[in-house]
């Protein structure tokens, strides 16, 4: 019962933050609301005992993506002002489309038959994932580090000042 109450509280928090992200007039505030929404989702993952997913959500969405968005807003001129609204004249259409999407998703959830597993979550799930990274999946794991090198060089190439 207590868990359900926490779930409802966290869900409400997440939804409010998401609404704030869409409705805030100041783009920077919107980004901060987005961080809050991401955080709420990660708490939901914790409640579902999906610890790895929850931590990945924090590292990737709050640590990387939200920071990227904040930087992008701060670095682009004319976006910081409080009068820079997020909405144009198509906003009602977007809302309408979203409403139908919501109906569709609700309908799909209604007809879908999800399979449930009786198996409990392994207490050392994160440790198991870590071991899999360096045993079974060592090749893609190591190759991904090459990908990171490529991305680093690329970022430096893009950001560096032009010299003639």
């Amino acid at each position, binding site marked *: 019962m207590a868990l359900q109450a926490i779930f409802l509280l966290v869900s409400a928090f997440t939804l409010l933050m998401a609404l704030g992200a869409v409705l805030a007039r100041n783009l920077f505030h919107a980004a901060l609301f987005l961080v809050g929404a991401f955080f709420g989702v990660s708490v939901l993952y914790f409640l579902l005992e999906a610890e790895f997913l929850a931590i990945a959500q924090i590292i990737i969405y709050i640590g990387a993506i939200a920071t990227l968005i904040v930087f992008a807003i701060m670095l682009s001129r004319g976006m910081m002002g409080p009068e820079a609204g997020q909405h144009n004249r198509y906003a009602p259409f977007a809302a309408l489309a979203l409403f139908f999407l919501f109906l569709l998703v609700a309908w799909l959830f209604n007809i879908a038959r999800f399979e449930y597993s009786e198996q409990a979550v392994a207490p050392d799930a994160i440790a198991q994932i870590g071991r899999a990274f360096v*045993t*079974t*999946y*060592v*090749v*893609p794991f190591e*190759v*991904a580090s*090459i*990908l990171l*090198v*490529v*991305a680093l*060089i*690329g970022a*430096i*190439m*893009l950001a560096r000042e*032009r*010299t*003639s």
Partner: protein
Amino acid sequence: MNLSSLNWNSLLPELVIVATSLIVLITAVVGKVSRVDRIARGHALAVVTLIGLLIAAGLTIMQLSQPASDFMGMVQSDALSHYLNLVILLAAALAVLLAWDYLGRFTYSFSEFYSLLLLAVAGMMFLGKSTELITLFVSLEILSISLYILTGFNRHQLASAEASLKYFLLGAFASGFIVYGAALLYGDTGSTWFSDIAANASGGFLTLAGFALLLVGFAFKIAAVPFHMWTPDAYQGAPTPVTAFMSVGTKAAALVALFRVLQSAVSAPYETWAWALAILSLLTMTVGNVAALRQTSIKRLLAYSSIAQAGYMLIGLVAGTVLGLQAMLFYLFAYAFMNIGAFACASLLESDDWSELQDASMANARGLFSRQPLLATALAIFMFSLAGIPPLAGFFGKLYLFDAAIDAGWLWLALVAVINSVISAYYYMRVVVVMFMEAPDESTRVRLPIPDSAILAIVIAVLGALLLGILAGPSFASLGQAVVAWRF
């Protein structure tokens, strides 16, 4: 499990390439050099890169005689991947020779360029070897991201940045398709290994949709119609050595990876996918050739021509037989020589204003024969080979491909391909006519003096196009022996 018990040999060429790339990268931060020395340092880096490529090629050749091996089922080191490695390394080496003089004209970022090129090579080599979806995706991203950056390498030029951005945006979509397809296949089978997918695929909607999405993603990477929209702009805007490299390397690696993926789709019979590939091939060669007819820029003409060539190479996959695979590999070798050779010649006809689009217009080649007879002859040889005129490599490549198609019962596709070759002859010959029959005027332009490195690249490419043609029989047969050894 013990890491030392693994078969590291099967990944040795790739490791050498990555190590070379890191060595090249580190030199960027060692010491400060004056502007004059920078060019010399660039040449030194090119030499290091070439040595790395040669070592990797040597290791690959040594592995040719060894039986196929795998690395924890993630990568498969077999005849297919060895020959693919050789094509990629050849393309990269020729691209380095092209970049030798070209690069120093607009940038001093030599170490970044060569290390990105090497990393793209490593990505391609991993891609051709991967037998597991995660490895496949990560290696595909390595090569894609390196090539996005290399495409926009000339930062003084708007067209280069535009090409890079277009390539990036559409490429990101293609990657999305591949991830989505991989996710569906994983959902269907509970595994990312090709062998498990083949064994457990339900054959239902999930399997079909998964493979179809992967096919779309790969079709984008090999620039097959209707997923080719980015190609002309990206190929025209990119620095020419990069264009030459990616037009060969990406196609080769993606074709081999696509073959491995589709081979694992045994639960949905290969014929289903052969039909999809056949339609893709038909569209690709026809649209590529027809669009090339109207081009006035040699670089753009070669871009459309390379779309059409991808259509021919897809025929090998359509056949799906040993003969088809063998023909595709042979064609890849021939294509590496003649296409990079053609781009090498085109790079010498470009304007010297580096803030403008680096483009070799058809007018620049007017009467080239009377100004530079050897260069004109070399370009003519590449054009003849691309058009498929005997006794050059391109002719035999097409012959083997069409033969494999007929052998596998795809007579109509072979006929369409023959008709397409006739169409393509028109625009390839137009370049030759402009060079040999017309008189030079003020628009004729050659970058003089022609750098020795470019001459070397062109000579290698000419020799390759000639020798692969003259020795087509024996080289095709030796490819065959190796490919047959591959499990079917």
